[in-house]
């Protein structure tokens, strides 16, 4: 591989072939990558299948921030996290998939908590609008079993 690559740097290659040079400490925040590095089955270039360049860049941004800011105030990191996960649902689900497959725990926590926030305290009606748009009727009837829990929300 590239001999000019600095020590302790790794190259991550996205599913669409784009390469990112990333410090090893950042890359190994993905447990999947950490295992590859520890088992020494990784060359300098690590393929990251199923994650395109756009999403991979976001994941790296997140990991870099979390690596750098270990000493920083926890509240700063929290602010960063909440801004980071504030994205459209499409990107959110792509990121969850990536964080899950690559096993990036902190990112997965932040993302899943964010989806939960979209549900928290809302009525069934609002959750449906948020996640479903118009596909309401089939769901109403298919889940009658839970109605006891929810009829107050139709008030």
């Amino acid at each position, binding site marked *: 591989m590239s001999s000019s690559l600095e020590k302790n740097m790794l190259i991550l290659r996205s599913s669409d072939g784009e390469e990112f040079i990333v410090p090893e400490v950042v890359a190994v925040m993905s447990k999947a990558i950490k295992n590859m590095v520890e088992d020494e089955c990784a060359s300098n270039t690590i393929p990251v299948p199923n994650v395109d360049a756009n999403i991979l860049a976001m994941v790296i941004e997140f990991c870099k921030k979390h690596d750098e800011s270990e000493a920083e105030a926890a509240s700063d990191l929290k602010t960063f996290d909440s801004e980071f996960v504030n994205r459209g*649902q*499409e990107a959110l*689900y792509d990121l*969850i*998939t990536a964080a*899950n497959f690559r096993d990036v725990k902190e990112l*997965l926590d932040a993302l*899943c*908590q964010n*989806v*939960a*926030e979209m*549900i*928290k*305290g*809302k*009525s*069934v009606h609002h*959750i*449906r609008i948020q*996640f*479903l*748009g118009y*596909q309401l009727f089939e*769901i109403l009837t*298919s*889940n009658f*079993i*839970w109605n*006891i*829990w*929810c009829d*107050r*929300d139709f008030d």
Partner: protein
Amino acid sequence: MNDLKPIDRLTEMPDDILSFILSFLSIRDSVKARILSRRWRYICPFMLNLDFDLHTVLRINYKARYSNGDSDISWEDKSKFVTGVDQFLELYNGQKLLSLRVCFCLGNEHTGYVDRWIRFAIIMKTEKLDLEFSVSPES
């Protein structure tokens, strides 16, 4: 992949991700989310502590609703409570439960339900079982 509707994207997530998302929610909110689709109905939140009372099940604030102190919980609310807890436990498929708390004014007419919940707690090897058959004003 991108022209799938958001709900499809959310629903195609692996079960453990959906469980994980639900685990950030209260019991009531997690149930509401499970109404979203057939698939979600059987997704169980990772919840190690289950707490069923007037507020968590029926979202009734005791002080606001029964402020004069001498009113009883209506028959209708009692019936909703026991059915709701029953339904939740029936679809609960977690591996282990640390604690189960039920705090509600239940009487002899509910022994069948209570027996079932105790059996559930035993099967789940619950470490702490807390049954209070009265509605405490703090709840």
